[in-house]
């Protein structure tokens, strides 16, 4: 059982959760993630760690279906597993980026994945900026119009993008044209998060990789987005959305922070 310190709304449908988890707080590196279970009958929800506060970890999430709705109402957390996945290449292979300018380009709650990467890059004195394509969750984050992505990317040496598969695919396409290094942090369907099931598999350069143990960050030019997008439909059930509409009434935004 993990203690919830706070769990509150920050902007339409987006919540910030602070949980006491000392082992994870002291071991998780930028780019790694965790899996949460609210109670013993809950689903396992994969989440980035937005920030660390002493012994606590901070999650930023949008309510998009039954499980995130449950999280919103949680009184305590049953299970917290992590760190999962690997550290971001940008903070791991630091000498590669010493004199480079890095762009962290996100949509929706993708901000949660890049915040700690950006902080670490600042510590390493590697120049970096965060941009979001939609009305940002946090006021201090710059917003870029999707029509101006090309101009923005051209000002940087390397890009890390996090968001919906559709959005990341577009960023990769533009970065390719501009001949910039582009990396993506993927969020496919996941179950255990420790390599037991293969539900998180993605095709990287035609080869099966498990995002939870080989990723979540990959070379953007190698990702097969076509199949990745289609696999997301698998459990993104109408049921989840219907459920939310029922409990929330018509005010429900559908967790559309990505769109």
């Amino acid at each position, binding site marked *: 059982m993990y203690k919830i310190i706070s769990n509150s709304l920050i902007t339409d449908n987006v919540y910030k959760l602070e949980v006491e988890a000392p*082992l*994870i707080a002291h*071991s998780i590196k930028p780019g*790694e993630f965790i899996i949460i*279970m609210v109670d*013993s*009958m*809950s*689903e*396992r929800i994969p989440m980035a760690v937005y920030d660390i506060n002493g012994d606590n970890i901070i999650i930023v999430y949008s309510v998009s279906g*039954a*499980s995130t709705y*449950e999280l919103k109402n949680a009184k305590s957390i*049953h*299970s*917290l*597993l*992590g*760190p*999962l996945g690997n550290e971001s290449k940008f903070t791991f292979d630091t000498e590669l980026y010493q004199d480079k300018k890095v762009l962290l380009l996100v949509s929706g709650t993708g901000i949660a994945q890049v915040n700690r990467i950006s902080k670490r890059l600042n510590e390493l004195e590697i120049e970096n900026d965060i941009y979001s394509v939609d009305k940002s969750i946090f006021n201090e984050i710059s917003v870029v119009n999707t029509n101006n992505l090309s101009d923005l990317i051209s000002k940087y040496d390397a890009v890390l993008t996090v968001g919906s598969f559709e959005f990341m695919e577009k960023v990769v396409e533009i970065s390719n044209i501009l001949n910039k290094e582009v990396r993506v942090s993927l969020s496919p369907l996941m*179950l*255990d998060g*420790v*390599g*037991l*099931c*293969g*539900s998180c*598999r993605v*095709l990287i350069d035609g080869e*099966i990789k*498990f995002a939870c*143990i080989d990723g979540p960050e990959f070379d953007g030019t190698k990702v*097969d987005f076509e*199949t990745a997008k*289609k*696999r997301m*439909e*698998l*459990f993104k*059930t109408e049921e989840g959305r219907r459920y939310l509409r029922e409990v929330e009434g018509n005010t429900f935004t559908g967790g559309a922070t990505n769109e």
Partner: protein
Amino acid sequence: MNDDLKRTPMSMLDKEERIHNFNEVELGYTKEEAIKEANRCLQCKIPMCMKGCPVGHKIPEWIKAIKEDRLEDAYKIISEVSSLPAICGRVCPQEQQCEKMCVRGLKGEAIAIGALERYVADNVERSLEYLKKEPNGKKIAIVGSGPSGITCATDLAREGFDVTIYEALHRPGGVLAWGIPEFRLPNKIVDKEINLVEKLGIKIIYDTIVGKTISLESIIKDYDAVYIANGANKPKFMDIPGNEANGVYSANELLIRVNLMDGMLDESRTPIKVPKICYVIGGGNVAMDAARTIRRFGSETHIMYRRTHEELPALGDETIQAEEEGIIFDYLTTPIKILKDENNKVIGMECIKYELGEKGEDGRMSIKEIPNSNYNVNCDQVIYAISSEALNIATRDSDILHLKNGLIFANENETSIENVYAGGDTVTGPMTVIKAMEAGRKTAKKIIENLK
């Protein structure tokens, strides 16, 4: 003495009824049945059955105790070698071990040793605490709460060691908890066994991935010895086109959804996709477990296997029960392509037929493809149960252990680092519960000797 050539049958759930629920299929012996079966044992002077047992169960001794209705004694004899009898009695491949060697099997059927072991475990008030020695002040860390880790922990705790098990998942038991289904091994049986060993003072720390949440180096530093027993469970996918289609799963995924996450219960929030027609590819226990699981959700279920009935690696009883439950076996066939529609959904498979060839060096029949035998089957789900490999998150980030194709390299469970041991599936590759237990037990013995 009972000289019936046939063993005493065990009651089972009705086959029509059981495919609608996850209740345990084999119901276990009653006292009368157990004594009747125990009376078939010849109490051999040189018991062949013991030669077939990897952990050296004193089989005729405890069978004699059952015969005389001295269950407490039977349990004590069993406990000398096994701390998980309710589990072994249910899932050990006895037919390939003790029962295979039993002399009564030469003419007629072998003694139902597994069923008798289970009878003892299920019917006696159990406790292991009477075996516990005074604390000796030494600390041991174990990575993984599967059968290997639990066995090692139990043997060490009995000896007075202070034992901590680190477990990645939120439940103990490894494959026993997330893999082997309720209808063969109910979770409450696993939990009961674990409770018993916890009473010896063993601490299990969940949600903790060694190599991630805490480093292997730190536990090597903090403990007098470390036993790595983290299994080998990364599922393989066939190297054919279409694996990315929606509706293709590993058997592990289905089993985790249903067992670890309680997907068969209404109150569980983990979704299960129930297909109309499902093909499970493979022929081992994992294939049977996956097929029998999805069958219980009402799907038409096939098992597609490259060889024939005779070569199925699964336990005989499981195969029989799968057949009884209406699972259709498609032998000498393999998929070469998964067919999908424009929405990436599975709609079928292209398959080819094989024929049996010569017997290979490994004793198994070779197979060869029949040219132009391609044909299509319709289905909306494909589940791979074609083995798994080691992953070793615990050792992946530290370059201190020699890895052999993902497996940890250990010589008689000793790794290249002093006081660091490894065993079970993570050293051997996917094997059996009893082999994993044996490795745990041998390691405990070594640790006890080496730390004296």
